């Protein structure tokens, strides 16, 4: 396999991963919406480079072009949730005109109620899951709060996979010099066979040990 083919093969796998991870996020918002019998649900990814929250998945009113739209992480409900790592449930918010305007500008939809939970992976804040306008024929309960946290834990794993996949894609597509070198070496290794391949593998293991600060294995 030449370098181009190798790159293409890895990229194809990553593209498949991106689609799977997107489908998983979509499934989470649709399930959350169904379980809470809500009007809408969405997942935002935190873009740390720009300090913005980006729509990654949406179920409910609002068209699909919302995916990819960005909003500030420095203010608003989702901004508070991602910054403080605390979940939040608000109801009957229609009285606040600024709240309604902000939401309408962001989503094209003005909710009366918002449930928002931070998506956390280890110590990182990855994004926010929101459920809009849950069915309010009964009061919100502690069990609802726990259920929301469980959905948040699941969505965080999906978001972590998505961001890792994108990082790998960026590396394979040749954005960084070190990654270029790794791709070249991996493609060359793929072309070797038998003793040559085993020797090259031992050499790479030794290099790995040196880079890790360990003594090379005998």
């Amino acid at each position: 396999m030449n370098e181009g083919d190798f790159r293409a093969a890895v990229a194809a796998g990553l593209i498949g991963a991106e689609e799977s991870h997107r489908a998983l996020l979509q499934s989470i918002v649709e399930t959350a919406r169904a379980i809470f019998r809500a009007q809408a649900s969405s997942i935002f990814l935190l873009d740390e480079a720009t300090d913005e929250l980006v729509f990654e998945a949406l179920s409910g009113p609002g068209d699909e072009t919302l995916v990819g739209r960005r909003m500030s992480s420095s203010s608003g409900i989702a901004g508070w949730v991602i910054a403080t790592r605390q979940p939040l449930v608000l109801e009957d918010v229609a009285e606040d005109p600024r709240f309604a305007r902000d939401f309408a500008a962001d989503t094209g939809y003005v909710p009366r109620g918002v449930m928002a939970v931070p998506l956390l992976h280890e110590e990182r804040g990855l994004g926010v899951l929101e459920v809009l306008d849950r069915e309010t024929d009964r009061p919100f309960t502690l069990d609802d709060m726990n259920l929301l946290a469980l959905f948040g834990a699941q969505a965080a794993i999906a978001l972590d996979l998505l961001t890792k996949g994108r990082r790998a894609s960026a590396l394979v597509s040749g954005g960084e010099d070190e990654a270029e070198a790794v791709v070249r070496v991996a493609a060359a290794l793929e072309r070797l066979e038998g003793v040559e391949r085993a020797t090259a593998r031992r050499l790479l293991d030794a290099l790995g040990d040196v880079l890790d600060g360990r003594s090379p294995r005998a």
Partner: protein
Amino acid sequence: MAEEPYADLPAWSIHAGSVEHVDLQGDWPSPLTREWAIDGATGAGVRVCILDSGIEAGHPLVGEIQRAVAIEIGDDGAPNLIDDIVGDVSGHGTACASIVRALAPECSLISVRVLGAGSTGTGDALLAGLRWAVEEGFDVVNMSLSTTKHLFAATLHELADRAYFGGTILVASAHNMPVDSYPWRFAAVVSVGSHDGEDPLEWFYNPTPPVEFFARGLDVEGAWLNGATMRYSGNSFATPHISGIIALILSKHSGLTPFQLKTILSLTARNVEAA
């Protein structure tokens, strides 16, 4: 206690009707009652600092605030304290202020806005805001927030201890998600989870920390932006209930230390009775 459907989640919340009784150990010189602790108290003379998203001054449910500052992250990455002319950037700080005000109507409120510096600047802003609040010696600091960054944990811990010994009581929201977060896990702070009762002056003591107290946190009505009101749920709203109750205690019994306040809160909790 009734079996919970999500029993393996951290103990951050409790059904008000299923709280276990705690037998009081040892001989106490006299019963320490809620009446002694808070009856007739207004919060007068107590300074409560709200470390949050800012406060909308003049909101009908908040009234005037004594001072408002904000932490701004400079171009060099260093946090600077400035007078806050922005106010509340989310609504949450105003909500917390209104809960404290409802319980302790005559307390002084101080706003430290640590939100607005972008999500990546919040940790630094949080530390700088807390450091200022501790140095100012406010009586109560309400922290309805947390950080998951290990980098900040040691500094937060040091600040929590400094507050504890300096007579400033930190009241912090417990986390209801399976992640490590701070400062609520530290022994020097008062950590708060939610119960689903309706009485804002009902609190429970939890003998199995890290969550030490539960206060009203479900379907609470209070202030939001632009003079509005809203109903909300979450540990971040249970926390200002405990801050308000502490303000009441302090206004009636000045000079109490954080450990004395914790003792009074536990002895007067609704679920604690003499054995």
